[in-house]
């Protein structure tokens, strides 16, 4: 089974804090993704990566950055968290043509 692990399931951060969301996959997949899920808005792509040290902007990259130093790890960074970034964040990988999601990280910015 494909395993996509998001180590932080629930976080509460203050406005202006720097936030790191970590994601690790165990299937040696090249492609990794970060989505944001909000009620009524579905899943929106923030950033994705096709390979180590490579990144591409998705549909809503503003306020976010990413890091992929190793193939198995893809990190989402909020440089200065804001209340409108309160959301659930989903990491995903692609194997063949199937995308596999982690269980999500619930972030609340107060």
């Amino acid at each position, binding site marked *: 089974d494909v395993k996509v692990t998001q180590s932080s399931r629930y976080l509460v951060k203050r406005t202006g804090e720097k936030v790191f969301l970590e994601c690790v996959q165990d299937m040696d997949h090249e492609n990794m993704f970060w989505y944001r899920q909000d009620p009524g808005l579905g899943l929106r*792509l923030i950033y994705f990566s096709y390979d180590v040290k490579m990144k591409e902007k998705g549909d809503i990259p503003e306020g976010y950055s990413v890091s992929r130093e190793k193939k198995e790890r893809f990190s989402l960074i909020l440089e200065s968290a804001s209340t409108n970034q309160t959301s659930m964040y989903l990491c995903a990988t692609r194997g063949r043509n199937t995308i596999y999601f982690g269980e999500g990280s619930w972030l609340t910015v107060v």
Partner: protein
Amino acid sequence: QQQVKQSPQSLIVQKGGIPIINCAYENTAFDYFPWYQQFPGKGPALLIAIRPDVSEKKEGRFTISFNKSAKQFSLHIMDSQPGDSATYFCAASFNSGYSTLTFGKGTMLLVSP
């Protein structure tokens, strides 16, 4: 611009009923159409997918119907069960699924006992 429109936003059916969720897309270059199922507190998981060269695909109680000329596809759940209560997302991508997925906004399904 929303490229995949999903309806309804929520749906309640009785056990044994056949909920139908509809999606419409705009870009005719899409060639891979998956459906994802998400239970509360979990990430979405692939349920079933179809390519535009077929009009229907069945996997167990789940069926995708695809209408290429209308640029629409739908998910039917036969003999629905309370355990099917979840949020369902349709999606579309290019290159047989090897590009990024564009998701619909989701449908919350509740199957009452």
